């Protein structure tokens, strides 16, 4: 090396080595990157864990001689002590509470969204939105307490004590509707806000009133977002646990009457696992089977909601 770099090079200042512009390999950087990748990948483990554990224990459940899948899906009696494992009473109670909840949450949520996005001044909006956020942030057990100690007595005094049971799905559903209202309102409002101003101006230009602009132009344009919000709300209602555990009653019952008590899927899981549940008991396995069903229902609803947003979103500009 010393021979080659003779006096000539030094004088003129030719570089003896070319500058390496190639990215140098740094061990520290790669270690950090793989750690970060692991953190990102970790959530996959969670999903796999859910599917594997739910699937495994549910498989054990269905392999028991007392249980068969057909009876599980179509039976209208859930009475483990006499080996009746029909999940329909639980599913039915879940659907009743969800229906009551959505009958509150959809109209109110939409009205709130339309009001906030189309009518409210900025000042009103800035006061109302935090209040809705507070509603969404209250723990569900508090809502459960509210349902049982406030809404149920009111229902009973309106419709009569012999009509409305102490534990009933109507009270749980109503309160659940209030819980879901902010969710539907805020997602729908985002969708309404995304509708470009020019559409509104055009409608005003054609002589439409404010209501007509909101209902006939803005809402239809934002329909995909609103539909997604509603489906997300339904999924949330199906998975909601503590309100129904406190207020909807214990004991599976196949009834469409919202004034009677009935146990939902989530309520049943909570009640069964409340005590010291021994592993390998039929109860232990059964909560996994119900959990698996619950997981699939909510997951598919969530996926449908995402699909709707992606497929039907109106792209402006």
């Amino acid at each position, binding site marked *: 090396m010393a021979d080659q770099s003779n006096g000539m090079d030094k004088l003129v200042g030719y570089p003896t080595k070319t500058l390496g512009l190639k990215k140098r390999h740094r061990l520290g*950087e790669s270690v*950090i*990157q793989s750690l*970060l*990748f692991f*953190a*990102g*990948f*970790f*959530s*996959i483990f*969670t*999903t796999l*864990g*859910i599917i594997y*554990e*739910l699937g495994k*224990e549910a498989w054990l459940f269905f392999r028991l001689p007392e249980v068969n899948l057909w009876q599980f899906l179509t039976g209208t009696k859930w009475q483990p002590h006499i080996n009746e494992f029909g999940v329909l009473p639980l599913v039915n109670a879940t659907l009743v509470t969800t229906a009551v909840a959505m009958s509150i949450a959809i*109209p*109110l949520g939409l*009205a*709130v969204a*339309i*009001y906030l996005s189309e*009518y*409210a001044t900025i000042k009103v909006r800035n006061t*109302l939105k935090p209040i809705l956020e507070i*509603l969404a*942030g*209250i*723990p*569900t*057990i*508090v809502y*459960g307490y*509210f349902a049982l100690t406030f809404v149920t007595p009111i229902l009973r005094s309106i419709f009569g004590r012999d009509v409305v049971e102490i534990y009933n799905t109507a009270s749980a559903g109503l309160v659940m509707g*209030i819980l879901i*209202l*902010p969710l539907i309102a805020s997602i729908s409002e985002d969708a309404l806000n995304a509708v470009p101003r020019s559409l509104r101006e055009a409608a005003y230009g*054609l*002589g*439409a009133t404010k*209501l*007509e602009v909101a209902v*006939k*132009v803005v809402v239809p344009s934002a329909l995909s977002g609103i539909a997604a919000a509603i489906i997300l709300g339904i999924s*949330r209602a199906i998975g909601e*646990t*503590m309100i129904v*555990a406190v207020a909807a009653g214990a004991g599976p019952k196949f009834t469409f009457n919202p004034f009677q008590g009935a146990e939902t899927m*989530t309520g049943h899981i909570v009640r069964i*696992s409340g005590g*010291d549940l021994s592993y390998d008991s039929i109860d232990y396995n059964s909560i*996994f089977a119900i*959990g698996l069903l*619950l997981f699939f229902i909510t*997951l598919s609803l*969530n*996926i449908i909601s*995402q699909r709707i947003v992606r497929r039907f979103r109106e792209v402006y500009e």
Partner: protein
Amino acid sequence: MNQDKERTAHLVGSDSPLAPEPNLSARHRRGRAWQLIFQASTVVGIIVLTALLLNIIDSSFGFVAYEYKVDPATFIVDGVPLEDQTKDQLVALLQSELSKGAFNKLNDEKPFEERTRAEVFGLVAERILKSKVISSWSLSTSLFRRAEIDAEVQEHLIEHPRLELKFVSWLTTDFLSRPQSSEAVTAGVRTAILGSLLTILITILVALPLGVGAAIYLEEYATDNWLNRIIQTNINNLAGVPSIIYGILGLAIFVRALQKLTSGLLFGLGDPTTATGRTIFSAGLTLALLILPVIIINAQEAIRAVPQSLRKAGYGLGATKWQTIWAHVLPNALPGILTGTILAVSRAIGETAPLVVVGAATAISFDPDIFSRFTTLPIQIYQWTARPQDEWRHLAAAAILVLLVMLLSLNASAILMRNRFARKY
């Protein structure tokens, strides 16, 4: 009116939804009516929130009629009434009045030297005086329908001659400092609060680094390939999984499969014969899984909000990718990340369902540690609400107030942080 319609018909087409209806004033009237309806719907939320808070406050205070099965006057020592006696005197009293086995059992749960005076007094009231709530009333009844209460008290007096009527706040400092008890008068939320705090501590320790790491990976490193798309979709889907499913997962994995780890046996703690995986450690890990997607999504947003120019400047000065992230991106995203984390944590504090499934116990009268069985504030509320007697409902309301104050202070700190560190680019 029809002229009106005809004149504009050629502009929009009469079958268009925008075709003006004939009667303009009717349209405006309808518009105003619906505006009122929209406004009223918004007010419903506020009304419910107010009703909820009033209902809880209403239950947290009020008259209570109770009696001691044993008259406290029998335990006056040297003229000092029971309420003013020292802790040592109270312990001595317990030792003399209780059977040896019962006393030793209490001592095993938690040595008397470690108990506070309030706890010992609670034990005396519960075990020796046997205080018992006969009836209780809400604040509104206590204030406005005093006559009814008096009438009821008169009835009870026949059966319970030693009955005392007292206006109480169920939420007291004693309530905060006493452990769980089987009598409403002496029950407290100390163990529940400690359980909640320890659980959340573990949740944060696990979920924050993992969540922020994942967010950095997805925002800064991940290229748009199938694997990374799956990771992102998966995180979005996990955020929508009902919390009770996480509870079932925690029960299967942390409580059962990893029992050696979560019961502390692996670290040589605990008694192998009684150890169980239903510990605070399991609960914390379960909640960590639950809030991980929320933390990731919030942190991603915060990182995305850091302008690209900062990164370019870092690279321009010759910094490596990680140096740029560590020194520029993260500090700028930190307020956003912390705000998101606090919101996620306040969700975790209020979670009940997964912890019931993981196996929170309720009758915990000793201060928990990480590898002990536990109860948390929401669990305590759930159990008290589920009992039919009124006095437990009052306790539940008081516990809800404690929980709401905890959440309120967390959220307030999040908002303060957001306002203080908010930067505009």
